[in-house]
């Protein structure tokens, strides 16, 4: 036994010597969710190749921002690599919490042109639309919809739906259709069980209701600012279209969600859909592989569709996903960069997709067999083509808290009108930008 241990130690020393680098213990920080487990699996290959040991700090989504932004703001040394949320990029870049990666990318032949453009803008760049990179797109994600394909396919329901609404029961192409379908299923008894129309985000504490409402508002004409005058929000955030979008979201919440869904986010949506409670479910696409293999709703029982279009045909979806960055406070930046170099390889990205991670590399998603590789792959591609993201300003947290309050007050608590909510939001956001010296 002793001789075996000595041999192993000698072998490890040889490997370390051969690679010419000291083996490091790297800590990667991310949210605690299914893709994180896939990343652990994927990274075993890196550990074997590099001799570095990977450690992980995964935090549940509802407290992920609290925990990790505290870590970054306090200059903590817990994380060497951070897969931070897309909206953190502005603050992390301006406050020197992530290291700039341009030189590293150039030196290692990593080109941002090789990644889906929306993910580069959303996860890597600050300021937006400038070639200043602080992250490598790591996990592409977007809000989309799942539906009960088996229920939609029932002839008696199809006939009843057509008789009532005058068109076929199928994945909705517009939000108006989505509401029709949700109303149709609301309170209906299917297989002896009462079911509900739709599941949508309503969570108050972190970002839930903002992600959900914005997912609808974009297609109704909401814009964050005047395209010709940055931070000019009057008439854009609270445009008539945006007001109609928020009214729609409230109407959908009032008419067609299950009781008790007043503070619900990703996890509750997964539970509602897997338990056969809802006909349609809004959720980030990262949840889709889990539905596909679920014993209750997996396989042919579940279908996937991108966010429907608004009344004027505009069609957008809320971007999710994250980039991977090197934390400036880390003392192991060289090893952390080595991990990113390994992660960016096309072969690793292809395996990432196979394990359940949504690669943002074009060579993976543009591969001829990608769209048919999983039942949800095409809907994912369609969704990624229409993304928009929330503010990624350094004050994103304050901007987010304002929208959380305004949306929840109106949609869930029923206080005031949609116009008052959005007018209030313009006032809140204006104050934040004034404090930032941007107005």
């Amino acid at each position, binding site marked *: 036994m002793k001789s075996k241990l000595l041999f192993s130690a000698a072998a490890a020393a040889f490997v370390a010597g051969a690679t010419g680098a000291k083996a490091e213990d790297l800590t990667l920080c991310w949210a605690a969710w299914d893709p994180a487990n896939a990343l652990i699996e994927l990274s075993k290959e890196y550990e074997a190749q590099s001799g570095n040991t990977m450690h992980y700090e995964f935090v549940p989504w509802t407290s992920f*921002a*609290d925990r990790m*932004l*505290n870590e*970054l*703001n*306090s*200059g903590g040394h817990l994380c060497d690599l951070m897969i931070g949320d897309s909206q953190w990029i502005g*603050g992390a870049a301006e*406050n*020197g919490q992530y290291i700039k990666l341009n030189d590293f990318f150039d030196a290692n032949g990593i080109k941002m042109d090789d990644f889906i453009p929306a993910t580069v803008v959303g996860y890597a760049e600050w300021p937006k639309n400038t070639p200043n990179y602080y992250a490598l797109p790591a996990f592409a994600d977007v809000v989309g919809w799942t539906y009960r394909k088996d229920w939609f396919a029932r002839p008696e329901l199809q006939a009843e739906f057509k008789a009532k609404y005058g068109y076929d029961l199928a994945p909705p192409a517009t939000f108006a259709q989505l509401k029709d379908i949700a109303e149709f299923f609301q309170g209906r008894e299917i297989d002896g069980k009462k079911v509900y129309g739709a599941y949508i985000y309503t*969570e*108050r*504490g972190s970002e839930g209701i903002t992600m959900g409402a914005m997912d609808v508002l974009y297609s109704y004409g909401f814009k964050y600012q005047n395209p010709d005058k940055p931070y000019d929000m009057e008439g854009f955030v609270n445009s008539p279209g945006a007001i109609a979008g928020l009214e729609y979201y409230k109407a959908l919440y009032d008419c067609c969600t*299950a*009781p*008790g*869904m*007043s*503070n619900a986010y990703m996890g509750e949506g997964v539970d509602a859909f897997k338990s056969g409670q809802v006909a349609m479910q809004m959720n980030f696409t990262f949840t889709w592989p889990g539905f596909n293999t679920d014993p209750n709703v997996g396989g042919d029982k579940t279908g996937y569709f991108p966010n429907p279009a608004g009344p004027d045909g505009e069609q957008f979806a809320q971007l999710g996903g994250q980039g991977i960055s090197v934390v400036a406070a880390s003392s192991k930046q060289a090893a952390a960069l080595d991990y990113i170099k390994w992660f960016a390889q096309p072969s690793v990205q292809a395996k990432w997709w196979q394990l359940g991670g949504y690669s943002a590399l074009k060579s993976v998603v543009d591969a001829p067999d990608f769209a048919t590789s999983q039942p949800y792959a095409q809907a994912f591609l369609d969704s990624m083509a229409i993304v928009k993201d929330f503010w990624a300003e*350094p004050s994103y*947290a*304050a901007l*987010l*808290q304002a929208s959380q*309050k305004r949306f*929840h*007050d*109106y949609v*869930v*608590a*029923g*206080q005031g009108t949609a116009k008052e909510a959005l007018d209030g939001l313009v006032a809140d956001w204006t104050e934040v930008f004034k*404090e930032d010296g941007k107005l």
Partner: protein
Amino acid sequence: MSEPLSQRAATATPPVLAHRIRGLSDRAIAWIFVAPTIALLLAVNIFPLIWTIRLSLTNYRSNRPNAPVKWVGLENYQKILHDPDIWNTFQVTAHFLIWTLVLQVLLGFGLAYLINKKFRGNDLWTTIIVLPMMLSPAVVGNFWTFLYQPQIGLFNYVIAFFTGADPSSFSMIGDVGLAPWAIVIVDTWMWTPFVMLICLAGLRSIPPSIYEAAECDRASKWRQFWTITLPMVLPFLMLAVLFRGIENFKMFDLVVQLTGGGPGSTTELTSINLKREAFEKWRTGYASAYAVILFVTVFGLASIYVKALNKVKDR
């Protein structure tokens, strides 16, 4: 026979040190013993308080370590006191505080009065009643979200059983009218046993001879209650109100788990609002001013209350 410990310690003390100690007064020695505690208190209580007051007069944001810090004087205080959202959180907190105190005092005293009677299984019932307060508030909050769940929650089924209403027709934590009461119910469930224990201590501290004398004077049970029991338990009750009042003024974990401050801002207590300002919006200076206002409020109210408590005790 071996020497006593004090003698051994005296002989073991190096002569130089012994000489120095002999030269110190009793007062100086007392200060030497107390100094570490005072230093600790200064480090963990007084210094943070002074630092918070200093920060409250600036525009400092802890997520912008490189940004210049500007002295803003009392601007943060002025903004807070003119912010209708903050006054709303004060109203929400007052509703929570008043109703939890009223219910916990009434129920706690009632339970203590019953438990104080000699009956079989007295100890077992006491143990069962105090179980909720042994749980973590975060666990209780999470646990009650399931009890309040309209489709599967036990609470809704119990209400439905007695009223005939559809269990899924109302949502305790999703309805603007019901949510403030939902948090009051859970806090009352959890902390009434605490008030009961304090009242029980008060009831058991009353000498039986007083009741015996009252019996001799043919005082009715009702009169005994109003003239003996209640006045003698009152200081204990007031102490319980003080403890629960301070605790509930800074209530956070239970309500965050239960409602997250929603629906809307219906159950957003001051502590939740403060946390959002400090650690979600990162307005450190503003949040420091907010914390100072809360500190002064609770300190002022507690001081007035303690004076009243002392008066009652001295009666």
